């Protein structure tokens, strides 16, 4: 055909073509409807993530309704005594809620400085090659399953802490928060590094040209400019820590108490996640106890939803800031 230089266009398709080149109105409509239906079907499948979130919310809330309606919410949130099997049972989750926040915040105290330093190291200190060597280390830390961390905490770290520091028990808030810190680090490092490196060269070069050293540039210019991303990183790290189950269940000692004095990390605490994991098996179905555990699930869900919104807000801001620079 090409050799002839004589191309003819016909409305009848070639014998081996699967489709006609011109459609009748009926075919056209059918095609349109099929495409629409297909799209709707795909949309429905894609929407299943949202559906899942809604189902999670609905079903966890429904199961806790029996407890929330018959028992006092005040007692649940403000009382410190958690005696689900006593007669009458007392469901005061304050110590447990505080325990959850306590180990997560303690974990952040260890993880945030270390995470930011590591993020700065990856983004500003080393070449692309070194970065590609270090990055997998962080990824491996993130990939190790939580039960393996818990295993390490209870069989290696706890006896070590007890031996070296003379604690009365090795499974305590310190143990749990150290491990949680290690687990939160990969999240903190990668999000913080993204936002620090997204700022671009101009900002840094402007600072260097004013005579600032690298440390001054990073601490006074880059990190303040990247603060949204770093806050998002911290919030995401906190989310990881507060939602973690196996490690705190195995390593925190599971004593429902508020540490006294407050800075004493060597005491055992108990978290929401560990309480749910540990007591669900013993709580009979349709009992108040089970309802209380589901209420704890609702509480956890609300906390993580809230933190998720905060992190999204800061991530969006970080994106904008990165775009501007």
């Amino acid at each position, binding site marked *: 055909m090409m050799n002839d230089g004589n191309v003819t266009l016909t409305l009848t398709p070639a014998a081996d073509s699967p489709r006609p080149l011109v459609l009748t109105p009926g075919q056209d409509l059918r095609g349109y409807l099929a495409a629409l239906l*297909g799209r709707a079907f*795909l*949309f429905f*499948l*894609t*929407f*299943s*993530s*949202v559906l*899942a*979130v809604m189902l*999670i919310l609905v*079903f*966890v809330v429904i*199961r806790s309704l029996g407890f929330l309606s018959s028992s006092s919410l005040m007692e649940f949130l403000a009382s410190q005594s958690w005696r689900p099997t006593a007669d009458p049972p007392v469901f005061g989750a304050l110590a447990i809620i505080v325990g959850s926040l306590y180990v997560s915040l303690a974990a952040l105290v260890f993880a945030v400085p270390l995470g930011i*330093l*590591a993020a700065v*190291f*990856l983004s500003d*200190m080393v070449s692309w090659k070194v970065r590609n060597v270090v990055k*997998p280390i962080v990824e*491996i*830390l993130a*990939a*190790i*399953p*939580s*039960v*393996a*961390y*818990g*295993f*390490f905490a209870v*069989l*290696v770290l706890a006896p070590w802490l007890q031996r070296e520091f003379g604690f009365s028990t090795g499974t305590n808030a310190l143990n749990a928060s150290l491990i949680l810190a*290690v687990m939160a680090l990969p999240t903190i490092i990668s999000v913080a590094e993204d936002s620090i490196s997204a700022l671009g060269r101009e900002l840094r070069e402007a600072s260097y040209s004013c005579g600032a*050293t690298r*440390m*001054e540039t*990073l*601490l006074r210019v880059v990190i303040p400019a990247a603060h949204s991303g770093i806050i998002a990183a911290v919030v*995401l790290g906190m989310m990881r820590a*507060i*939602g*973690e*189950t*196996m490690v705190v269940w*195995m390593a925190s000692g599971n004593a429902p108490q508020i540490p006294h004095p407050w800075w004493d990390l060597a005491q055992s605490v108990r978290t929401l*996640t560990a309480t*749910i994991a540990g007591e*669900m*098996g013993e709580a009979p*179905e349709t009992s108040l106890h089970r309802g209380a*555990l*589901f209420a704890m*699930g609702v509480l*956890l*869900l609300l906390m*993580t939803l809230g*933190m998720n919104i905060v992190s999204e807000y800061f991530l969006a801001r970080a994106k904008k800031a990165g775009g501007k620079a």
Partner: protein
Amino acid sequence: MKLRFRGQLDRVFTIATGLSVVLLTLVLLAILGPMVYRGSSAVFFQGTVEFRKMQKNLFGRGDEQALHAEVAETEKVRQQVYEMIDAFKKGVDVEALSEQVRQIHRQFGQDLRDRNLPAGEYTRLRELTRQIRDKLEAAFRSQDINEIKRLVGEVLKDESNPQLKGTSAEKLFAIARQFLQAAGQIDLGKHQEYALALQEAEGILFHSEALPGLLGPRPGEPPAPLVMLRYGATRWDQAQTLLDRFLWVEHWVEEKPGEPLVLQRKPRAELFPEPLRPLFTYVEQNAGKMLHPRRTVYWQFLRDDNVNSHYFGGIGPEILGTMLITVVGMLFVIPLGIISAAYLVECASDGWTMRIIRMGINTLAGVPSIVFGLFGLAFFVLFLFPLLGFAPRPCILAASMTLAVLTLPVMIRASEEAIRSVPATYKEGSLALGASRFHTFIAVTFPAALPGILTGVILSLSRIAGETAPILFTGAVSLGAVPRSLFDPTRTLSYGSYDMAVGDRLGMMVPHNQYGMVVTLVLLILILNGAAIMLRTRVFKKLRGH
């Protein structure tokens, strides 16, 4: 001066950032190193003859004749231990002696009754052995050698009594004589102490009520109901720990009042009198000959079922269960994830629906894993299953679906990134040739994005295999039969690791199996992740090349 100071500060800061990464690496090594080292000893270790016996009896492995020869050889060396202990026991274990004497007395009475003696004769003989019995028991209890000599002497006077000749009562005299001989050798004041130490030493050598010993039960003993008590130390490292406990006594002593207690060790042999001390040297020197340690590769650890809650055997059903849950979960995740990602990239306009979907995915990624467990229990097990006519109980299917929901965001994000990174020119070329958008996606975009999507698949796989909290209430059990259908619960590596570390008392006695389980899980996941990372770098390079 100030400039120099600033320069130094800068250097310190640089070093600090570097140190943070060094610290991370050290943490990683500290976590993985001991775990891998100890876990690998579940497969590679020095197996003793007891191990080979156990393998033969429980799993039918190994050469019968070679094993018999080996057992015979070790039994020969062990025989001396049994003899030394028995000889010593005759003087020390008075409880057993008393019991023996009482038994003989009863037997004698039975014999008399069988012989149909006249009533007067019967009573007289019976009275005679009763007196002998009481005297012997008094002698056993006594701590004064002179009194023992007197009592035993009185007993031995009756030896010449013709009416006792040739009856079962004759054994009493043999016991009396042996006891007299043994009592002359030991310090009777320490009777009690010896008896206790002997009991403990025997427990370590053979087996105590709850724990298996170094050599296993003595030949001729009825087999113990617990399988773990039927064998001695199956591993040389275990044997050495037991040997150490056999040879040394540890106790905590308060050296100075008010100070913490100090651990002191002294040889157990010192607790015993001279005649028994050779036993300890004998066991110490011949432990190798009694157990025959040999380099063993127990790869069947990955296949065998466990025996006696993980005391023996392997983790086969756990691996199978993890694989089942993972595969079934992936059947849900892969199509759903790819379709969602494709829709988000290809069909999505930037409207509010998309924003909601994106928020849904992000929220789903942030939900705590234990809440997924609650959701799986409340929705799949207690709501959906009864609705569909299935039994509302935890099972593989429920666990898989729960984990599928949990890992959906991972799959969607990875696939979305992969599909997005396919160059637009590919698609445009296809569209220009007249292919429909659907056809373009199937024939052009999807194959091009496949390696990236595969990365997502592998990451989701490793996530599903490693999660524990969501399957606590939806399908994991610590012990139980191998599942026959998707509606049975199963054992998994992740829950098994938890159970071996915390829930199971026996786990502490077999650290190699404990660590073996968790290391299998960690290595499985690290290998999957390593594959994902490698795949990703290759895709990255290829796309950069364009």
